[in-house]
């Protein structure tokens, strides 16, 4: 590894500041392969300064007002260019979105929340993207635009590998859509990291639909324990339609530990992550379960 001077940007690139989605996708169509989109820059600037990437073109999408919104319209719709701070403040008002709120709270401190965007957190393609597990448990979809078409993708299909997403180089993510959340659903998110403001060692999100003491349905997602943020589907099936009690949650936790594929890295070890996953799951599940209400609890 060669050390680089991270105080300066040594690379030359052309810089565009489009005002509309249309303009952006035209630019992407022309320069896609060699271009990078910059929004808050909290990930991209670090990569540029470390010389991990060297795009010939930077397209800044922060001046596109039509990308910045949070609104309830057939569920929750979030423009991809919305600042993390704005999403956080919206989610703080409604316990329905508890797991997304908790993920945003954990994501970083003031600087990252004020600069970073939700689209940026996802499009970076990081397995530890904190907003990914809550969006997975909410069965979200993302809207992706290119010069030719606009398509809706299940969020589960979005991550393809470490720093790889389903998006082609001529495409722009424009919206994240959380479908209406059923009554009796509770959600939660917990992150374990080295220090308060850090990338996670492991994250877990749960959304559970509860009919009294029966788990009608449950979605479990984890971050930083596989090449992509992942659903733990075998664990979910253990719960589906069953009466919830301690032994069942214990068993589900073991399933979670079996399903993940963690590695050793600078933040933690595979062994520790595997050990932590059922413990974290149990914490998050019971939190979500209590929030779901739906009977004695």
């Amino acid at each position, binding site marked *: *590894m060669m*050390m680089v001077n*991270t105080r300066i940007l040594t690379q030359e690139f052309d810089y565009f500041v489009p005002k509309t989605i249309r303009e952006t996708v035209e630019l992407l169509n022309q320069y896609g392969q060699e271009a990078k989109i910059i929004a808050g820059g909290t990930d991209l600037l*670090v990569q540029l300064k*470390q010389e991990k990437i060297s795009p010939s073109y930077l397209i800044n999408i922060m001046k596109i007002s039509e990308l910045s919104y949070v609104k309830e319209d057939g569920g929750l719709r979030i423009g991809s260019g919305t600042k993390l701070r704005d999403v956080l403040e919206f989610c703080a008002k409604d316990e329905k979105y508890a797991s997304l709120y908790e993920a945003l709270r954990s994501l970083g*401190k003031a600087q990252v929340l004020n600069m970073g965007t939700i689209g940026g957190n996802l499009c970076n393609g990081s397995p530890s993207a904190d907003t990914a597990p809550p969006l997975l448990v909410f069965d979200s979809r993302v809207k992706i635009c290119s010069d030719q078409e606009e398509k809706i993708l299940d969020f589960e299909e979005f991550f393809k590998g470490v720093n790889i997403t389903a998006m082609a180089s001529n495409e722009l993510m424009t919206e994240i859509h959380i479908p209406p959340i059923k009554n009796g659903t509770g959600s939660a998110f917990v992150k*374990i990291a*080295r*220090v*308060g*403001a*850090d990338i996670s060692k492991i994250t877990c999100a749960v959304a559970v639909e509860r009919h009294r003491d029966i788990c009608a349905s449950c979605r479990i997602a984890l971050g930083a324990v596989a090449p992509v943020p992942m659903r733990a589907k075998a664990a979910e099936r253990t719960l589906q339609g069953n009466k919830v009690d301690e032994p069942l949650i214990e068993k589900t936790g073991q399933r979670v530990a079996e399903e993940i594929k963690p590695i050793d890295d*600078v*933040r*933690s*070890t595979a*062994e*520790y992550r595997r*050990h*932590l996953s059922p*413990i*974290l799951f149990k914490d998050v599940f019971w939190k979500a379960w209590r929030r779901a209400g739906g009977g004695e609890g």
Partner: protein
Amino acid sequence: MPGEVIDYSTAMVKVNEDGSVDCSTALMCHGGGTLEAGAKIVAEEMGVPLDKVEISPADTRSTGYDVCTHATRGVYCGGASLQKAAGSAKKILLEFASRLIEVNPDALKIRPDEEIGQGIVYLEGAKGKSITVGKVAKTAQFKGWGTAIAVESHRQVNCPPCFVTNFIEMEVDMETGQIRPVRAVAAVDAGTVINPDLAAGQLEGGLCRGIGLALLEDTDYDQETGELTCGGYLVDYKSFTAVDMPLVDDVSTFFAETYEPSGPLGAKGVGEAANNCTAGTVANAIYNAIGIRLKEAPITPEKVLTALKEKTQGERR
């Protein structure tokens, strides 16, 4: 008892015609208030209000030899040289004053006068036998007597230890191995404490850095390539910040009321003493919490968990 330490500082102090006092020192402030302490020492020694004392911007060309602010010597040795230079400049000033108000200079004193906003040279008990510091300096200037200025080097032959003690309550999550500092107390014997708020801040900073040393900070190298695993980037060299510390109300600091005869106004330093004992205290607290003696810093959740597993396996055998 005279020691073997060779430690010296150099300072310049001069009195201006408006009663203000300029000082030059090679000391710098790391955030512990070293220069503020230097100004307080000069104000006290000279007998002028603190706001009349200014520490000048300095560089190597305008200062004498000094080993600057480090360890526990900034206030102790650097402050002592400022005190000595202030004393010498004062002596010159009083000699000038004695000519003006016709009093033996040894009988003259200076006290700060808040109303006039500067120091007043006076003879104890004699009304009328007084004159402002500024007027003395100005008269000396136009009469061609010179400036009340002094440069002094001061050698401290000892560096008296600054004693610090920590009490830290740690919470260990037996399932995840995560460790959290809950409450902490830090107490210091730094002789006369010249900047109480900043000295308390140094103790709190020492706690934060020391807890980080015990639990987190590490330069881990790849066994094969010899490269730092954090890549040399601070984004992956983590250190604790305020959010990782005990709440403000759960950290207390105390000063032992002592007087160090060789220090300026009885002062010693704080410096690195603020975190000398912290990592050990943390390790002791963890031992008291889980009954396992972890000897290798940083004590990470991963290491705690491995140790807990080994202990349970050992007990089962």
